[in-house]
């Protein structure tokens, strides 16, 4: 079987300042198979692939491609040697056409310096036809939905005639139908003798599509097994390294009277339509649904950072305006945003500045001068209450880990004394230990009588932390389930209702 090995990575190590991201990881991909790479966030899957692809340079270890040692210096180098990757984050030139994006960096030319538009169009059509992708090559990238852009990215990888194709979480923004389409493409590539490396969190997908599964944890190789020998429970155990039971803190909060009422919430510029629900004091309400189903939009419209078309928001029976974030904060709302880096942290500023920014008025002396002492005290409180790990308050927030950054932002909001917390993916990109702490903080908040609305893409998390789960689909509220009794299947069925 030795000749069947297409790619062999042995004892790969990679360190970043302060972190050992990869610790002697090995991976063997056979010709004509799909090899799934699994592990939690931060397990090192993407880092390993970036080392293969020449985006990072590995510190130690060897990579053999068809028995020949390779060390790609750049992604261009990798692509030219038959290794392609469909990245998790889409790095596309959004203002350019589909065709331009497909041939970026290797435009077919006439005479070496004139771009041959005709050849480009023909080639694009050929690739799209082969893969049954229905996208106009002339369309501007930014006008396509994310799922179509994802398909273009896949077509691009395929068009390199690569021997190894890495798919990094390719289905996170695809509908069920598109996932089927992707699987047809993957099976086609497999039959052609390619080696596919497939990174995903979705266990059902992995078990269905892959031949072999390698599990990683905390930068280390854990196990490689044939997919046929695995099931959900075994996979989780391998990934988490312990039984699932201890993933969530005990639920101690007791929902009280109805506090927040949302009636007919409809957005001006997004698909959000006629969303009505209520939430109680001390209750944690989950918002489930696929990407783009309107979960984030619901929170943004309640908080007033997205423009509302119509709808009424009542707090304790009284209507609140919430036309912008300032009004919402005054009314007692707080919004923890989904994209921590893009809309949460002030990376270049220190922890204290990041903590007090929403509650500056509290620290005013004589209406004009900020008191360093009181800002220092509040930040100290936040660091202690949120258990933020930092040497001091002057540390720049970007040097903290994702979990600690999230705790700083949570602290920022608690200092505004909110009654309703809107949390959008509060544990995204956070390691397991820190997740548990965030869950505990959320439950503690509910214990204090706060109303919590929490959006998450991780269903176990919703089932483990929430009291009630609202399921959204296609911009509308598809239904509501009791978190204690609901199953993932039930939620998925509702999520597909209007999709």
């Amino acid at each position, binding site marked *: 079987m030795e000749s069947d090995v297409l790619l062999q990575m042995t004892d790969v190590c990679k360190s970043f300042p302060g972190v050992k991201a990869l610790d002697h990881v090995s991976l063997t991909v056979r010709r004509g198979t799909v090899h799934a790479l699994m592990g939690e966030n931060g397990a090192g899957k993407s880092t390993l692939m970036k080392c293969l692809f020449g985006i990072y340079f590995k510190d130690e270890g060897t990579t053999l491609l068809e028995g020949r040692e390779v060390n790609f210096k750049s992604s261009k180098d990798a692509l030219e040697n038959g290794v392609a990757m469909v990245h998790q984050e889409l790095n596309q030139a959004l203002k350019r056409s589909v065709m331009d994006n497909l041939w970026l960096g290797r435009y077919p030319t006439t005479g070496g310096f004139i771009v041959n538009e005709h050849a480009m169009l023909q080639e694009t059509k050929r690739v799209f036809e082969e893969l049954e992708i229905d996208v106009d090559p002339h369309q501007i990238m930014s006008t396509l939905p994310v799922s179509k852009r994802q398909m273009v990215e896949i077509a691009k990888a395929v068009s390199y005639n690569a021997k190894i194709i890495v798919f990094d979480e390719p289905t996170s923004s695809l509908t069920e139908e598109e996932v089927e389409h992707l699987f047809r493409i993957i099976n086609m590539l497999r039959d052609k003798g390619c080696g596919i490396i497939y990174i995903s969190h979705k266990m059902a997908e992995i078990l269905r599509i892959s031949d072999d599964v390698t599990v990683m944890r905390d930068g280390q190789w854990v196990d490689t097994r044939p997919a046929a020998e695995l099931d959900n429970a075994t996979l989780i155990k391998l990934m988490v390294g312990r039984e699932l039971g201890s993933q969530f803190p005990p639920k101690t909060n007791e929902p009280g009277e109805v506090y927040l009422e949302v009636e007919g919430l409809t957005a001006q510029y997004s698909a959000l339509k006629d969303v009505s629900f209520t939430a109680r004091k001390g209750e944690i309400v989950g918002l489930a649904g696929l990407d783009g189903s309107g979960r984030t939009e619901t929170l943004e419209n309640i908080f007033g*950072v997205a423009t509302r078309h119509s709808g009424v928001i009542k707090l304790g029976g009284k209507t609140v305006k919430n036309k912008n974030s300032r009004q919402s904060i005054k009314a007692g709302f707080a919004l923890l945003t989904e994209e921590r880096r*893009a*809309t949460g942290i002030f990376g*270049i*500023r220190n922890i204290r500045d990041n903590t007090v*920014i929403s509650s500056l008025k509290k620290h005013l002396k004589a209406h004009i001068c900020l008191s360093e002492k009181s800002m220092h005290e509040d930040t100290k409180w936040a660091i202690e209450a949120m258990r933020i790990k930092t040497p001091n308050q002057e540390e720049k927030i970007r040097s903290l880990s994702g979990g600690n950054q999230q705790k700083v932002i949570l602290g*920022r909001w608690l200092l505004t004394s909110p009654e309703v917390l809107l949390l959008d993916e509060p544990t995204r990109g956070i390691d397991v230990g820190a997740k548990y702490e965030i869950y505990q903080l959320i439950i503690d908040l509910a214990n204090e009588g706060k109303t919590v609305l929490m959006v998450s893409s991780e269903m176990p998390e919703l089932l483990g932390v929430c009291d009630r789960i609202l399921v959204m689909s296609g911009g509308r509220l598809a239904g509501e389930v009791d978190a204690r009794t609901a199953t993932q299947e039930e939620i998925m069925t509702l999520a597909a209702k209007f999709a």
Partner: protein
Amino acid sequence: MKNPVNALKQTSERYKTLDAKDRKKFWIDGLLNNAIYIILVIFLIYTYMKNSNIASASSAVNLLNLVAANLPMALGIGGCIVLTGTDLSAGRVVGLTGAISASLLQATTYINKFYADMGEVPIIAVILLAMLIGGIVGLVNGFFVAKFQLHPFIVTLATQLIVYGACLLYYMSNGNNGQPISGLSDKYTNFVKGTILPKIGGQSIPNYVIYALIVLAIMWFIWNKTPFGKNMFAVGSNPEAAKVSGVNVFLTTVMVHTLAGITYGYTGFIDAARIASNTANSGQNYESDAIAACVIGGVSFVGGTGTIGGVVLGVVLLRIIFVCLNYLAIDQNLQYIIKGAIILLACSIDMRKYLTKK
């Protein structure tokens, strides 16, 4: 506040843990990050060897005067740079407000008076008017930047032209026919250039040094002690996060530009009497020196960083270089080339710190 002794201790301890390759990098990084200061010291020593007059009291006071004249504008533009913006209209606003200040404060006995029939105008009214006009230009800049998300480069390029046009028209108006405005009243000249401070080494310190210190104190307070200052840094660092955090991004942006405009108006008022030769080209290219000073002083175009102390340092360093060039009797045309090279060098060193390496 960081204790310098502790910081040094920490650095030396960290240094001990480095291997040979990293140690080399440590030194190279240290050299490059401080290159501008190292060059400055070498430059000063070289100038002193060529012309020892640079180490005199008159040279020091001259430097102080130049810094005082240039600092307020740099402090204003610094705010725009904190917001990742810039302001190209600054110099022309100085020209316009200078012309207006001079025309209102001519000696009543002067023959070619701009406003022939006007009596004496109180100085305080003129300085407020100059700051008001500067502030209005800044307000317009800020409004278009904040409302339409236009890049400040474009907005201020446009207002620069508009203000210059207004300035030319002003010089043509009232039968002045484009002539320089001179014959300033003694009160005005004394207010700016007179001295109430004791002499230092036989050199008198003009009053505008005191005013610059007052501006400095006010700006320090605004940047460090007011919610507006904190909001400015937040918006510069991440406008989206600032919006979600309840910061009024629109108002903050408008106010930063307005504040900058006010400093230009102030500079126009001072410069009209300080230089006392007011033509339509007064103030031209002032903004390039101010922007360069900010960047040299660590107010970075990446946004959200910079300190008042840094701006002061930047202005001082830049002025020292210019003073040295004069003492070395370097050709004026060549000075432009050297200035340009210094700005390029300073910006490269600054941005180098923010380049992400993998």
